[in-house]
């Protein structure tokens, strides 16, 4: 127990900002922006403080807060932080203020927009820090509400359908997730993640669920799986994603793909894997195939897009599928002897790095596309531009770096994560690697096509006329992201140092109960 409830502070500071914005309807655009930005920054400030006082050698939860809450459901207010959560908190801390900055010029009425955005930020943090299903699910579901309105109210022409589809898909997944946890509670009488992980590891949970008989134990597993699979998304539950990301305003796309999509990966690693090691092992074959489907088909679909925003959206599916590929490869290999500890550790640490790196790169790419769109008066087709490099050389440079980071060029951040994932998967399920490489080639192909058609050649399309280079706000958004790409490309240990002991512990738990 810590004296200051620092994790609560982390979650509720953005909500406090939202409450202030809600309480002052006469606040002008300028002061709303400043207030929202200040409250959005609190996450980064607290995260940096946490970084300093976080015990890197420990694998348990730190800064734990636990209070009684609902006696009838044995629910507690339980927050805790380990290396994995800290990584995600840092990611949210970096992306949230930048996404707000990115929205500054687009949004005429920033008060309501920032209010919703701060709500979303707080809910996302809550998902990464809550350790009891009851309030974890509150954050999980409530994050949808601001996201829905952010897409619906400030999105493009098709935003009504996109936002509806986004919420219905996710709520659909969550309904099954909820049912899964209903069954888990009925079997164990607890909603506490730590307790449940223990019951999952020693096989008690599986044994109790087996008492249901018939197909029901598998149904519980599939329910929980489906909830997370929609969120990540795992192929073929991804169809909500391209329209949602494409229709959302730039800043929101950045945050959705950078931070919110990580909620699904987090769920897989924090809940599904610890709670259901047995069923996950049993289902690993088909799941690996689906993850590979996401890697390959996501990249090939991106290749077929002419809308630049949809192209980046599909590439997000491809990148997040690598994370799932690694996890499924590990669970396919778990229980095998001799245990493939080293490969598993590589796969896990690649996954966590990928989670962070994808957040940085995808946010930068979405911002760049948003900038192109704004300069072109709303057009963002592959054929609408030409020679942007000549018109805006600085922008071309920054965006090019983000592209190569997304492509996985060594020396930039994307490389390390993907390399470790491939290294891990090779040691666990070697056959998957050549298939996944198809995805790498397709990614290279579509990103280079993007680069060539939009940035090279003579100035054409929207870039033929007046096309100003990056300005103050653009610098403020892109430069920190690009700097991080270099920094983490050269010094990935800045991040791996946070979660190495945790990874080692995870990799040591490969025996099945």
């Amino acid at each position: 127990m810590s004296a200051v409830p620092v994790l609560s502070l982390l979650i509720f500071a953005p909500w406090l900002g939202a409450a202030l914005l809600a309480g002052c309807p006469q606040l002008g655009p300028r002061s709303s922006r400043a207030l929202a930005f200040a409250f959005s920054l609190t996450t980064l400030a607290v995260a940096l403080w946490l970084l300093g006082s976080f015990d890197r050698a420990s694998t348990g939860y730190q800064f734990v807060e636990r209070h009684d809450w609902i006696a009838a459901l044995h629910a507690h207010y339980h927050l805790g932080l380990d290396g994995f959560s800290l990584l995600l908190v840092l990611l949210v801390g970096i992306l949230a203020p930048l996404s707000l900055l990115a929205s500054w010029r687009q949004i005429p009425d920033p008060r309501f927009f920032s209010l919703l955005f701060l709500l979303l930020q707080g809910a996302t943090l809550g998902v990464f820090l809550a350790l009891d299903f009851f309030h974890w699910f509150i954050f999980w579901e409530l994050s949808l509400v601001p996201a829905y309105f952010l897409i619906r109210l400030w999105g493009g022409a098709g935003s009504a359908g996109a936002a509806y589809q986004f919420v219905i898909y996710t709520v659909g997944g969550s309904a099954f997730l909820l049912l899964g946890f209903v069954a888990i509670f009925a079997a164990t009488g607890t909603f506490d993640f730590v307790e449940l992980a223990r019951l999952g590891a020693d096989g008690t949970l599986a044994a109790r669920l087996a008492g249901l008989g018939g197909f029901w134990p598998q149904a519980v597993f599939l329910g929980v799986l489906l909830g997370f699979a929609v969120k990540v998304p795992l192929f073929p539950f991804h169809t909500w994603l391209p329209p949602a990301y494409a229709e959302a305003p730039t800043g929101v796309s950045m945050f959705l793909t950078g931070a919110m999509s990580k909620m699904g990966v987090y769920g897989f690693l924090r809940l599904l894997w610890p709670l259901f090691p047995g069923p996950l092992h049993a289902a690993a074959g088909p799941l690996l195939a689906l993850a590979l489907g996401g890697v390959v088909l996501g990249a090939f679909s991106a290749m077929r897009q002419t809308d630049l925003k949809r192209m980046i959206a599909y590439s997000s599916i491809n990148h997040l599928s690598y994370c799932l590929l690694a996890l499924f490869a590990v669970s396919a290999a778990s229980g095998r002897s001799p245990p493939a500890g080293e490969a598993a550790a590589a796969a896990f640490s690649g996954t966590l790095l990928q989670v962070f790196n994808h957040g940085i790169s995808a946010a930068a790419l979405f911002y760049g596309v948003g900038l192109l769109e704004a300069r072109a008066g709303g057009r963002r087709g592959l054929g609408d531009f030409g020679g942007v490099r000549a018109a805006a050389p600085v922008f071309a440079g920054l965006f090019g770096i983000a592209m190569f980071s997304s492509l996985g060029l060594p020396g930039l951040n994307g490389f390390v994560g993907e390399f470790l994932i491939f290294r891990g998967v090779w040691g666990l399920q070697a056959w998957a690697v050549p298939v996944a490489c198809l995805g790498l080639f397709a990614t290279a192909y579509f990103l280079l096509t993007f680069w060539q058609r939009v940035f090279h050649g003579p100035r054409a399309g929207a870039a033929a006329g007046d096309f100003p280079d990056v300005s103050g706000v653009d610098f403020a958004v892109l430069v920190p992201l690009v700097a991080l790409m270099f920094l983490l490309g050269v010094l990935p240990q800045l991040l791996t140092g946070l979660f190495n002991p945790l990874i080692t512990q995870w990799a040591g738990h490969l025996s099945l109960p």
Partner: protein
Amino acid sequence: MSLLPWTIFVSLAGALLAWAAGRRSARAARWTALVVTAGAWALTLLAATRFVPGPRLQTLVDLPWIPAMGIRCHLAVDGISLTLLVLTGLAATAAVLFSWNIRERAGEFFALLLTLVAGVYGVFLSADALLFFVFYEIAIVPKYFLIATWGSTNREYGAMKLALYSFAGSAMVLAGLLWVYAGGDGHGFGFAELAQTAAGLPRHQQIFVFALVFFGFATLAGIFPLHTWAPTGHVAAPTGASMLLAGVVMKLGAYGCLRVALPLSAVGFAFWQPTIAWLAVIGIVYAGLVALMQDDLKFVIGYSSVSHMGFVLLGLAAANAQGFSGAVLQMFSHGVIAGLLFAVVGRMIYDRTHTRRLSDLRALPLRRLLPFAAAVFVIAGIASMGLPGFSGFPAELTILIGAWKAAPVWAAIAALGVLVAAAFTLRAIQLAFFGSAPAPAGGTGAGAPAIHLEPITLAEKAGALLLIGATVLIGLKPDLLLDWINPALQSPLLQSVMKGGRP
């Protein structure tokens, strides 16, 4: 003497006063009604602070009434009835606040409303089945007049259908109760006495009697396929009456099922349990799908009420501690949320725009014309979807746990209902408030059509905040009610239901 019986007398006396005040002015009548409903609600809250949760009914008044038949004027309270009493006070106060614009024959309107409320208080306090039945009828009659006189769309049809279903249901209940009393050589109409008497009947009679009483009550709770009165009645009713109808009157049926029907016969319940559960889950999904298809916004809400009451019935059918406590919690939660939804649709939107058709509303920039209504409807919609943080979530979660323990397949289908609820609620929000083309950049440009709607009044704001506060409070702290409800589940009668008749 305890405070709670006064709620009945205060409401009845208030009805007379409101009628008298209405002869003077509408203003006097509504203020009288507000003071009376708020006063009765304060009484329930005051009694709640002194309430010591316990397993048995705590007798408040027990007088002989018709000694020849062993009928007693027996009022008693436990955690379950207290929850519903507090709900009644809250819903009645809010209903008066949302009836603030009634001008035509206001005195009679509020007199009928208060009579209805008195009947509802009486039902929740009765510990004698016949007294229960009398109050039940007192609550039904004013409903007919409220709808037929002050209603809107198809009001005669809606009022008549509702009254006929209600009377048919109560006739079944009465027949069942008399059968037990007469056929089983009973000595009184206390709940425990009835159960004891019924146990002496032959098996097939028990099954039949149970069906009469249970489905009689369940009609009023909106069980599929006897639910069709609910949407038409809700739609036709004036706002305050819809709020009470969905908010508390449907609860009378569910409460009757729990208090009178279920303990009546373990044999009968064992026979009907799967049927009830299947009807409940079919109701949840079917009514949700119908709500998805409606064009009249009030019909959407009406069918959503049927869907949500399906959860209550499912909890009752699960017949375990989670099922029962979830069902009572859901009764409270739905009472608040449905009240809020009907208030927005009936009062805030319909009284101003004179249309409830989604196809008309989507053409109006309602979100800018009535931002407060939009905000309230979004919050109520989110709560109604069962999103966590609002009272619907702990209630539905508890019911799902209970249903899963009874039979996983019921819980699985009911979870589909959660998804359907999200779909129809979101559709309604989107079409009603966010249907129009987005505003030209800069906000209130010259292009905006010159529609001026009367601004939201203070009474509406107060009512809305009251109900939102209640749903959030219970959503975050369901223990407030569960601490009353759970001890009451230890009563011998309910325990014997949960244990399938074994004492």
